[in-house]
Each structure stands twice: as C-alpha cells, then as structure tokens.
C-alpha cells in the first residue's frame, strides 16, 4: 500500500484523515499514485491536477523522502521508501493567501 498525505481541505473533501492508503499496480510514480487516489476518491478529480491538461495545480507540490518532486516528470519512479509504504507521498498546498 502506498501512503499519501493530503492537505487539509482535500481531507475534508474526501472525508478522510490526514493520511490515506492506495493500491498501485506497476511502477510507483506520481502519476500512478494520483490515478489510484482519484479512483479511490473520485471527488478529488480535478483538484490536484487539471482535468484536461493533467498538469499539477500550480499551488500544490509533491514531496517524498524529503525531496521536492514537483518539477520532476510525472512518470519518474518514486523512492523505494515510498513504493514500500515506509514513507508517505505528500501533497502539499502552498502557504499563501489570506
């Protein structure tokens, strides 16, 4: 199981806690995690990546194992610690706004 940590408002939308677990078939990448996440929580579709372009929303970033992976290609394999479930994949909202 892949562990995913969601920002506060997406927890509310998906009616989950801070962390959810999803099954990923095949390589564990940001894309495959988001595919699995959206399949398990359809209400998150369009909130993390754009419906059409599939681009990450600019005020969200992806972190794993202490690294900012936001600008890496979406199909980049994630560290083994994430693929094994030892560490979470983090979706983080920008600290901005008022």
């Amino acid at each position, binding site marked *: 199981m892949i562990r995913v940590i969601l920002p506060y*408002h*997406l927890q509310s*939308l998906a009616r989950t806690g801070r962390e959810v677990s999803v099954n990923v078939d095949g390589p564990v990448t940001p894309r495959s995690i988001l595919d699995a996440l959206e399949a398990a929580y359809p209400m998150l579709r369009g*909130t993390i990546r754009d419906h*059409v372009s599939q681009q990450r*929303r600019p005020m969200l970033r992806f972190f794993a194992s202490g690294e900012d992976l936001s600008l890496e290609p979406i199909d980049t394999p994630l560290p083994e610690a994430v693929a094994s479930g030892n560490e979470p994949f983090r979706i983080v909202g920008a600290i901005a706004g008022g």
Partner: protein
Amino acid sequence: MSGVRVLVGTHKGAFVLTSDGKRKNWEVTGPQFGGLEIYHLKGSPVDPNRIFASQVGDWFGQVVHRSNDGGKTWEAVGNKFLYDGTPGTHQWYDGTAHPWEFKRVWHFEPSLTDPDTVYAGVEDAALFRTTDGGQTWNEMAGLRTHPSGPGWAPGAGGMAVHTILLDSSNAQRMYIAISAAGVFRTDDGGQTWKPANRGLSSNFMPDPTAEVGHCVHRIAMHPSRPSTLFMQKHWDVMRSDDKGESWQEVSGDLPSDFGFVVDVHAHEPETVYVVPILSDSLHYPPDGKLRVYRSRSGGNEWEALTKGLPQKDCYVNVLRDAMSVDTLDPCGVYFGTTGGQVYASADAGDTWAPIVHDLPAVLSVEAQILP
C-alpha cells in the same frame, strides 16, 4: 407560516440563515466549507432543499457541492467543465489574444421546472448545463462561439457569465450577462444568441455604443413581466421594455450610477433596488453612508433607504450577486457586504437590520421561501 432561508457565499465558506415568516429572529449555521471561497449558492425553485454551491480557489480549482437537505449535508458532484471543441482565444486586458481557459463557476441558475437541470455561468465566459443533478456538465457552446467572442475582454474581476435570467413565460428564452461583453439573449433554448445592448454607452470603449463590449454588472427581471429588464452597468442604471432590444438610462437622481447589484421587488414590477457605489476607482459608498436606493417608478426617481444601515464611516462594497428578494408579503430584501454584514429588510426596504455582521467578505446572497 412560511419560512425563509438565505444562502450566503463568502470568501471563507458558506452560511445558511433561517427565519420564520416574520424575519425578525434568525438562526445562523455554518461555516460550511470553512476556509474556502464559495462564490455562489442557489437552490432549486422546484425543490428548495436541493442547493448547489460553487467552491473555487487557486489551490484546488473548481469543486461543485450539492445538498439535498437544505444545506445540512453536502456531496461533491461533477466539476469537469470542458469547452466544446477547440475554444480559441478572447481578448486580454492589453488587447492581445488570450486562450479561453476555464477558471471558475460564478453563478448557478437552477431550472424553473426540473431539479436536475441547472445552468452554470463560468469564467472564462461560457454557459454550461447539467441535466443529471450536477454529475456532468456540458457547454451550451452557441454563446461562446458567437462571432463576437474573440473580441470579448475581461473586467477587473475576470471575464465571466455572471447573470442568467430564465423567462418563466417562454422556456426557450433566457438572458445572460458577461463582464465585459454585455447582455445576450437566446430565443431557441440556447442554440443561438444575439447581443442585446443597444442603447448602452460605455466611455471606456473605443466605440462607446458598440454592440458588444459593455461591462454589465447585473441584470434583473420580474417574473410577471419578462419583457422588462433592469441593469446595473459599470456606470449607469438602465432599463429595457423590449426584451433587451433597446435600453434607456434610468439613473435619474442617484448619488452615483456606479454599482454592482440591481433587483426587483417580488410583487411590484416597477419597484427596483440598487446600491450606489462611489466609483470604479474607489468601490465604496458615497459619503461613507451605506444606502439602498429604491425606485417605485421603474427608475429615474430614487429614494434613499437608510433606516438601520450605517450612515457614517462605512466603506464596504456590495458585490453583484449579493442582493436577493423573497416572495413573502411584504417583500423581504437582503444584501451582503464585503465587510461581512448581511442586512435584511422585512418591509421592502423601509427598515433594515443586520442578520449577522462579522462574516468573511460576502460574495453572494440568495433568499429562498420554505414551505
């Protein structure tokens, strides 16, 4: 006795205000979707407990929420708003071509007859419709693909369909308004649209009386007289008595004819309400006095309604979707401010009192009558 429910969208969540028919004592519930910008909520006239809410924001984009129990509980429904075909470009602030991109739903207008059908006015300007209760949305592309579309330009708040008026006497006719393109009317259920702006004059335009390009802030219609429309334009309060074919200015003796809201009394088609704002550079009321102006003659002669409203040191704004009327007798009138107050009048505007005065900035107000 009938009750009233007022749906309030704010910069940081939604609130539901309820009262009995006396409209003196109010229960305030919320925030729903706390911390999130709720542009607009509106209930179905067929089933008032079915309400749609538009959550927007830079972090998570568009989310549409639906309630089937009057706003007590909510579920997320479809949020996929895809333009039909290749959307092309419209005009940007600097006159350059800019790709058409969906940004947010500004306004929901539920069908007058079917609780599963709702129209959505969106930014960048287009009209969408669901016929399955919000699960899927399809563009009514005849509006956006009007030949004038590539020349439409955004107002300061963006380029959006912000007003949708349904003609209860003719299911094929509706009106929409876009900042800054103007009013468009369809007589064939949305297949084709024609501009309805003759008589408008906007000095910021190269051709002030051009057919398209006006920054219309809001239009309103009394259900019993669907050929008559009232408009708060960027500057100027206008009326049309021929379904938008022509417009005449009725600003008359208003202290300022700039503003955002306009609404019509529920039982008196010639009684109209506006909230004058000093100017497009200042965005607060003249003289620090929050005054609703009422005309009982369809415009031109206006009276200031001040009882219960702050008459000094008041510098709030009232945004275009933030006024509503109920259909009780006497007619109730409601409006919300960027200072977080929601004011109510249970006597058609003669006297006012705040229902609540410390909400986040109010973006929209919609009144519903409960059985």
